[in-house]
């Protein structure tokens, strides 16, 4: 507690903020020191005032709604302002036995996985190339980063156009090659289309992280490997890759999060979940069941399932960040 030697210059009210009592109560109430500056201020009132805007907004728009989502999942509600009836696990049982929900979960899994791997591979190749190129590096980077600025809905609209069976340039080209491309009728085409649009939008994100990670690989290690006779590819595989692995792991998780939650705009503008629900991912289904079909109980139960997934991914994300820190050279 080095801060106490400065205690004399602190204003008087600070002392009353925390009574010096011994015992279990005090231990429990004792503010933890972790993440606190050695030199800090006292004054619980001001601190509370500073932190309250954040907490009040969280309370109103996060904690209360989340609590409601939890409770809604166990009741059945009449959509026209009727009464709520407690039904226990009924909503969940219906959900897990529902054919469309199982399809949606299956689709979400494969869609996010394919999107994830494709994004990482493309971004990895581009980052590797950027690392070896000196001339024009800035120009390439600028172009590759562009999709980050483009909203999911906008990129969805662009891809919907490119692959539109009647006017889209790529679709008409595919048809002239003899492939009967039509994402409005053929399920596989629709799934391929949303995957491509999602990858296109997300490569830039992975690319930024991977180029930053590659830049951080110490030049001395690569030079040492080069002196030992390792060719560029070998250096990449045995020196750079292990060192950027934590970043890759982190991106692998973030890509899942992106595929799960942030592709809503793409799906809504490209296929609207169709044809016949074949591109309805879990998040899109929550929206459709809740807002379009007004099946609140089922939608809430779906929210709970997504919550569990989101919490799982947050924990993994923090694991990944820890690993990233540990590996830093």
């Amino acid at each position, binding site marked *: 507690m080095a801060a106490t030697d400065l205690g004399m*210059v602190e204003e008087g009210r600070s002392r009353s*903020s925390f009574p010096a009592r011994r015992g279990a109560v005090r231990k429990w*109430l004792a*503010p933890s020191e972790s*993440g606190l*500056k050695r030199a800090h*201020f*006292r004054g619980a009132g001001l*601190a*509370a005032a500073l932190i309250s805007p*954040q907490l009040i907004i*969280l309370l*109103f*728009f*996060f*904690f*209360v709604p*989340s*609590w409601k*989502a939890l409770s809604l999942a166990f009741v059945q509600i009449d959509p026209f302002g009727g009464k709520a009836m407690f039904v226990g696990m009924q909503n969940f049982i219906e959900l897990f036995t529902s054919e469309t929900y199982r399809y949606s979960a299956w689709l979400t899994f494969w869609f996010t996985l394919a999107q994830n791997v494709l994004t990482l591979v493309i971004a990895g*190749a*581009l980052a590797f*190339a950027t690392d070896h*190129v*000196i001339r*024009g590096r800035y120009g*390439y*980077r600028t*172009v590759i*980063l*562009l*999709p*980050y600025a*483009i*909203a*999911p*809905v*906008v990129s969805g*609209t*662009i891809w919907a*156009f490119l692959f539109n*069976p*009647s*006017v889209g*340039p790529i679709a008409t*080209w595919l048809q002239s090659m003899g492939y009967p491309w039509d994402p409005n009728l053929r399920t596989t085409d629709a799934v391929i289309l949303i995957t491509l649009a999602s990858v296109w939008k997300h490569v*830039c994100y992975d690319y930024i*992280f991977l180029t930053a990670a590659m830049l951080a690989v110490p*030049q001395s290690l690569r030079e040492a490997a080069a002196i030992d006779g390792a060719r560029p590819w070998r250096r990449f595989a045995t020196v750079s890759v292990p060192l950027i692995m934590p970043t890759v792991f982190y991106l692998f998780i973030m890509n899942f999060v992106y595929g799960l*939650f*942030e592709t809503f705009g793409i799906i809504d*503008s490209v296929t609207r979940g169709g044809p016949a629900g074949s591109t309805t991912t879990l998040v899109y289904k*929550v929206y459709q069941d809740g*807002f379009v079909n007004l099946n609140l109980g089922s*939608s809430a139960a779906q*929210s709970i399932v*997504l*919550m569990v997934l*989101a*919490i799982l991914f947050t924990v993994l994300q923090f694991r990944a960040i820890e690993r990233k820190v540990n590996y830093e050279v």
Partner: protein
Amino acid sequence: MVERNPLLSVICHLILILGALMVGLPLYFTFVAGSLTPAEMHQVPFPLLPGDHFTENLSIAWEKGDFTRVFLNSLFVTLGIVFGKISISIIAAFAITYFRFPFRMTAFWLIFISLMLPVEVRIIPTYEAVADAAGPLRWLLNAVGIGPVLQWLAGISIDATMNWSLVNTYSGLIFPIIASATAVFLFRQFFLTVPDELCEAAKLDNTGPLKFLFTILLPLSVPNMAALAIILFIGGWNQYLWPLLFTTEKEMGTVIVALKNFVPVGDSEGGWEVAMAASLLVMLPPTLVILFLQRWFAKGLVDAGK
């Protein structure tokens, strides 16, 4: 670059050119389509060079989408989100790192938990919360007994008077999303790297916490704020689900929501050329931000991810 390797350089340039084409071609086709007439759109093969109706399509799109209004909406909402998020996050981070007070870690964990549930997960209840923003307050007043007392004393019924819906308002589009655990953590991480001597010196000079925040800490945080502001601007401009739910009136919508109305639904329906022109308009502000502030943007993204 450790050694010269012409073959590798060529391969790398090829990979990058391929990548740039992958990104650039869809955008180029968007531009080409945005410059054609409806009749030209149906040519097979698709024209590779732009036509001469670009400005015309732009003005049709501007008219049809009521873009003067929705662009202002988007700008207003986005700036509100950027300023709101940064200001409430920076003071929260300041309180958490620079103050010793009871329940400090509890507050920290409450903010931390919010990271776990993205908006998409709790759509319906959050919509209800926005449609009835006074709900929790009303419940609280009734629960502690103020409600009935007030009814008895002044004849004011809390259930009848305290009813604000934030649907179709700027507040409804801004407030629910300005709480941000990511931003709090970002500033917290930064504050932890600020030398302790600065605060000690400030305290020796009898500087109060607020003066310390405004005259020392904020100027030091400018680079972090700038980087974060760029990320938040792009995210705020591009968000879709939120404005889609909370604006039922067209005049309150954002550009992204307005763009959705341009997309032709049926197979044979026309209007793609206007939709593409509108897409270009909508993506312009964030694209300019990325092009001109690229260095800051990359920093902000990597920092925010930590």
